[in-house]
């Protein structure tokens, strides 16, 4: 066949060439479009996509921050970090996980329950996530694991840190304890949320909780390159974390331990305070428990033991226990009466063992009565009849004013302990508002002997005693040492200056505070709480008599050595109203059921010549203050005074030592 006419052939060629030309032009445009898109992605939006690419490939692993220490006044660590040996497995890196884990179980001698827990944990996490087999290997286990390590590939013994409380139950209520952060902790504290890593321990109660943000420290960060499945490929960098702030407390471990020893097997609280600096030397609540138990999750048995203990170890009695102060309120009642010129020191009452008023009988603790007593004697022998009469004349509102000034019915600390209780000092207005009923005069009488509505914490009583013992000046109670804390000398001279000012002229500040215009606590720090210091001195002298003179309620607990000599006031507060019949029976303490027994209290300060420390001893259902609480104070005073020299020496050496 001869090819088609040259004309058709030419036309065909020209059509295809023309169309190819159009197509080529279109191709150029399209390629231009692709280049434009490349330009847009790679040049214009390069930063955006580079960030996205880094976000893809880089993962940060926060390391747990190392918690700051707690130290006692002398720099001894009372809550620190212990090196612990842990055992980690990354399941992904193990060839046969099941046989490995059984081998590990045999070597560590794990029980079936723990073993099941580990398996459950393994199944709940990703295969490349570290599985913690044991948070705290014993030394024996650690050695054993290392011995068999060559046949346990994928198993990693790791050195880590965990909170430890070397003094076990001694500081539990003061420091609190740490445990795994809960959902609540995360929602309530942003700092915890920011720094949270699985297994992070945070403060649950006490100072561990309130100082969390100082203690927690900074996370270390490990940055890894990961692949699309989240597996770590290699480490890019490592930023060291920062240990949390170490916090030095005012407490003295020796005294604290002594308190614990004295309160052994009892429910109660002892607090010791420097009456000038406000330093709390010891604050112990009994019974206590070992906070180390909470570190790895407390076992059921241990928790049940603590929870079901009838003496309630979880309660911090020092600041959350509210009890009627009993006769330990009497120094304040006496001071209030003197300050308000209700009676003179020579005022006398004849005590016959009971007094009839408003159709009721009010009994004195001594059935036979004290006979004719003046104010000094009444404090010394703790005559209730005298105080009924004096309170009647004083009235509850004036008593309330004095008691609050000296620290009752207020929180001792500003906000360090969220669980701290305010307590209650009643007034006519309070009753109207709170109970909707008018004040009954008889209630004034029992308030005057520290019964009825009045409730105080043991630490409030300690502060009250301290503020009496320093001559009646306001102080700042504290447990944490600060750099700018005033020294004893500074405080003393401040007090003297404030006293001079008060004597020289009408106290404008005082007037303002009285009128409720000025309420700045710091402004009147170290300023007098009294109108006439002679009144305070009178009360202190009467307290001396109560301890150091024959017939004084705590005479048997006195120390004659001037170095240790102290003054105090006993208290025995009733838990429930007793009937006349029961009163007649006069049962021995061992014959009364535990819950019905009286609380025993004692407040004291010393050394008497130059007072420096105040303490309060409280024994729940301990019987009488004179027989139970005062002897403990005697034993403790020896230690406190002996430790004083050590404390002063340490202060000299470490003027600027904070922590």
């Amino acid at each position: 066949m001869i090819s088609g006419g040259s004309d058709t052939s030419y036309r065909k060629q020209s059509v295809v060439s023309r169309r190819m030309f159009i197509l080529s032009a279109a191709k150029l445009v399209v390629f231009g479009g692709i280049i434009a898109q490349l330009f847009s992605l790679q040049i214009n939006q390069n930063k955006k996509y580079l960030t996205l690419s880094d976000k893809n490939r880089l993962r940060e692993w926060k390391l747990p921050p190392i918690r700051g220490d707690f130290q006692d006044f002398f720099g001894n660590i009372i809550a620190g970090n212990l090196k612990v040996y842990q055992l980690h497995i990354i399941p992904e890196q193990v060839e046969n996980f099941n046989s490995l884990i059984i081998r590990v179980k045999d070597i560590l001698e794990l029980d079936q329950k723990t073993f099941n827990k580990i398996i459950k944990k393994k199944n709940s996490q990703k295969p490349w996530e570290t599985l913690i087999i044991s948070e705290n290997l014993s030394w024996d286990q650690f050695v054993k694991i290392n011995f068999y390590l060559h046949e346990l590939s994928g198993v990693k013994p790791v050195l880590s840190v965990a909170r430890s409380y070397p003094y076990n139950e001694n500081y539990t209520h003061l420091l609190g304890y740490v445990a795994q952060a809960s959902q609540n902790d995360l929602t309530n504290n942003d700092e915890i949320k920011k720094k949270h890593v699985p297994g992070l321990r945070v403060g649950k109660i006490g100072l561990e909780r309130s100082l969390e943000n100082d203690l927690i420290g900074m996370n270390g960060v490990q940055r890894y390159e990961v692949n699309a499945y989240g597996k770590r490929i290699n480490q890019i960098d490592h930023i060291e974390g920062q240990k949390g702030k170490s916090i030095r407390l005012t407490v003295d471990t020796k005294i604290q331990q002594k308190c614990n020893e004295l309160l052994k097997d009892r429910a109660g609280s002892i607090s010791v305070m420097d009456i000038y600096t406000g330093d709390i030397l010891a604050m112990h609540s009994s019974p206590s428990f070992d906070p180390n138990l909470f570190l790895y999750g407390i076992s059921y048995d241990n928790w049940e033991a603590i929870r079901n203990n009838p003496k309630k170890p979880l309660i911090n009695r020092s600041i959350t226990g509210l009890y009627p102060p009993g006769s330990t309120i009497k120094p304040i009642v006496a001071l209030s009466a003197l300050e308000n010129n209700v009676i003179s020191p020579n005022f006398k009452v004849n005590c016959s063992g009971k007094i009839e008023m408003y159709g009721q009988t009010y009994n004195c603790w001594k059935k036979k009565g004290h006979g004719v007593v003046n104010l000094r004697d009444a404090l010394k022998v703790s005559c209730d009849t005298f105080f009924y009469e004096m309170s009647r004349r004083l009235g509850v509102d004036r008593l309330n004013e004095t008691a609050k000034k000296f620290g009752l019915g207020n929180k001792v600390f500003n906000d360090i302990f969220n669980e701290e209780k305010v307590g209650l000092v009643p007034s006519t207005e309070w009753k109207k508002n709170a109970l909707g009923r008018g004040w009954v005069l008889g209630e004034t009488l029992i308030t005057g002997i520290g019964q009825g509505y009045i409730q105080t914490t043991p630490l409030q009583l300690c502060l009250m005693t301290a503020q009496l013992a320093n001559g009646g000046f306001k102080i700042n109670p504290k447990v944490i040492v600060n750099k700018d804390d005033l020294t004893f000398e500074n405080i003393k001279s401040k007090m003297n200056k404030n006293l001079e000012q008060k004597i020289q002229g009408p106290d404008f500040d005082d007037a303002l505070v009285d009128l409720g215009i000025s309420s700045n606590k710091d402004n009147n720090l170290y300023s007098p709480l009294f109108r006439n210091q002679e009144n305070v001195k009178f009360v202190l002298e009467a307290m001396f008599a109560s301890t150091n003179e024959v017939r004084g309620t705590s005479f048997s607990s006195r120390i004659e050595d001037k170095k240790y000599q102290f003054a105090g006031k006993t208290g025995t507060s009733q838990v429930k109203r007793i009937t006349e019949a029961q009163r007649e029976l006069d049962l021995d303490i061992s014959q009364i059921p535990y819950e019905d027994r009286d609380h025993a209290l004692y407040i004291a300060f010393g050394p008497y010549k130059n007072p420096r420390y105040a303490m309060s001893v409280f024994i729940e259902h301990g019987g009488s203050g004179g027989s139970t609480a005062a002897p403990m104070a005697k034993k403790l005073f020896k230690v406190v005074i002996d430790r004083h020299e050590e404390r002063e020496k340490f202060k000299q050496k470490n003027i600027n030592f904070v922590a």
Partner: protein
Amino acid sequence: MFQETALSGQITFFQKLRSLDYILLFCLLILGLVSSLSMYSTEGGEVLYHTKSHVIRFIVFFSMMLIFSFVNLKLWHSIGYIFYFVVLCLLIWASLYGVKASGSQRWVDLYFINLQPSELMKVAIIMCFAKFYHRTQIHLVNSFKNIIIPMVVLIVPILLVVSQPDLGTSILIGLSGLVVLWLSGVNAKYFIYSSLVLLISLPFVISFLKPYQKLRILTFFNPDRDPLGAGYQIIQSKIAVGSGGLSGKGFLKGTQSYLDFLPEKHTDFIFTLFSEEHGFIGSVLLLFLYAIIIYRTAKIGASARSFFGKLFCYGFASSIFIYVTVNMSMVLGLLPIVGSPLPIMSYGGSSMLATMIGFSVVMSTKIYQKQIIA
């Protein structure tokens, strides 16, 4: 007849050798090298299975292409229809007894190779149409018979490939066929009409799509609607390209690739990997390399005396352009994700074989450019 024989007889082997298009061959070799290195990079800098087989395939098929280049263009012309029918039979075979993989039935097991006939169809359709229009006189091109026959020839394989299912390849076959129809002078109004019909029938077509295909189209318009699912590929691909910047992250340093964020990096997304590692400069150079290949192919077509050779070269150059455009637009987020390899760069034997067969015909056209086919 006599004339032609005399003419072909005058060309000696050395003349043939000399008349090969060396620029085109050089560009193909460069592309082969670049693709082998990219394959090496997908395997994280190790010569593993993909790299090895890619290099071997390239060498084998490139050599085959060189040998086939010396085949007389007349022979290519004469087997134009047969080639089409053989591939069509293979397609039918594939849909009846084909090897199934990842949800579609595209391959036939030829004992020594798993062949994907749909890839071969991309070339076969061009060859078939080139022969058809070579034999059709220009004034008859737009006759009813000459419109219907090519339509049937085009639609049958498309339907077969769609049913595999393989939307990407069927679109590419369709586009390759249409471009040849356009070049051979089919009236522009048919294209306009059929585009209108397509546009109107689009909702119906979409209703016939498989759910995953619909998802891909939806994802194209908004990749962020499901960033970890359907949108994952395109998002990760754009991140890889975008983070490459001007000069790229460097050879073997494409983090998106070696950390496995990039899907299908051996095949459809090989350009993404290349672009991440070599940046804007590298990508434009690669595009330029393709442009030279397309240009040289078209140039051979321009100088061919036979209409068959001319139409094939133009058609093949245009379809290379289409493959490149569709693939790159897809990985750059300009088109929805449909399976479409980048010629020679992407891993895949059938695709490479088809491409090399095409270049054999192109080279043969060059050698026999003065030959006239009856």
